[in-house]
């Protein structure tokens, strides 16, 4: 957990006012602390992603919340899919095989 000054040192090409606006918009959600904020690694990585989206991919702040919301949904779905495959891995072999066979048929239908 690091403070906002440390974040500013880690990430070039970012103004503190800009980061504070992103926090106010809740695009970045550090934990509030007695003096300012505390950032986790995931928050820092998310700030880097937003900097890249803004600077390198030229996504403006009007479109950014749409992009972030869709990304958050994609990642939430992927976390659930992972949980589901872990649950499947814990099942008896015949159950795993039955599910795999069913899924294979499903993707086969897609192609054919």
């Amino acid at each position, binding site marked *: 957990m690091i403070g906002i000054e440390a974040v500013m040192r880690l990430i070039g090409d970012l103004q503190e006012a800009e980061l504070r606006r992103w926090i106010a918009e809740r695009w970045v959600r550090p934990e509030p602390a007695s003096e300012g904020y505390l950032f986790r690694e995931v928050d820092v990585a998310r700030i880097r*992603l937003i900097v890249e989206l803004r600077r*390198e*991919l030229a996504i403006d702040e009007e479109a950014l919340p749409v992009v972030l919301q869709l990304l958050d949904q994609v990642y*939430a779905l992927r976390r659930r899919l992972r949980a589901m495959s872990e649950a499947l891995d814990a099942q008896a072999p015949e159950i795993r095989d039955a599910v795999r066979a*069913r899924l294979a048929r499903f993707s086969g239908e897609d192609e054919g």
Partner: protein
Amino acid sequence: MAARNPYEVLGVKKDASEDEIRAAYRKLAKRYHPDLNPGNKEAEARFKEISGANDILSDKDKRARFDRGEIDASGAARPEHAYSRYRGFAEGEPGEKYEYHSAEGVAPEDLDDLFAFFGRGARAGRGSGGGTMRMRGADQHYSLTVDFLTAINGARQRLNLAPERSLDVTIPPGVRDGQVLRLQGQGSPGSNGGPSGDALIEIHVAPHPFFRREGDDIHLDLPVTLGEAVLGGKVTVPTPSGPVAMTIPANSNTGRVLRLKGKGVPRPDGRSGDEYVTLKLMLPEGGDAELADFVRGWARKHPYDPRRGMTP
């Protein structure tokens, strides 16, 4: 690894302008950015190649050296980032803080439908073996109407789910119309020892006869007498947490707004919104002869035009 020619990678001509290179890079980066393509190894490799090509061509000096043959494309291929990419966190438990529904007011049931969907498939018993899987029960959706002041001050309220079943729901102070409360484990039972689903309760807030809510603030029209409007004075004003005393300044017009700080809706951070009181002058009902006589004499001596400047 033999790196491809950066001009080919970005799909631009040898004499492309800086703007053309930037546009080509952006177009490809949007398509292949690794955080936008989780789980896609090919996109990751392409993005590395595109970034490396851009590193050379977007830098005037490096581009000139490449054109003169002083450096080759592989020498400038961008090394893997020293930092971890967002998706590395987002795909695991740390990413849960950015769960789609943690944005205020958005309910998570859409995503849990995924589990409910598989739960239904298992119950229908299609396919072999599926019926013995341990499954989380489906979430159940309910709606609950609470009165205006309950939504602000919070309360416990009973929700009848079925003739034989009811739930005591804790309404948190400041709950909003349309907000969804989740009661863990109060949905459908799981199958084969799986956990129960959750009850998701959508809150509807009934309107109030004189309070209006805007976000965390309360708005109220407060009728005042002619005497209070002209001379000022202390009045008692209703607020969601009970009546409070408020001073009306002398010479206050209809429409004047006074603020009662902290008398609005409690927020999760422990602070509260404000109550805004709009004054509304009420003349005595049915008129008053003495008042009319006085005003007739007064108006002659003190003409004023509150509508000046309103000529179109």
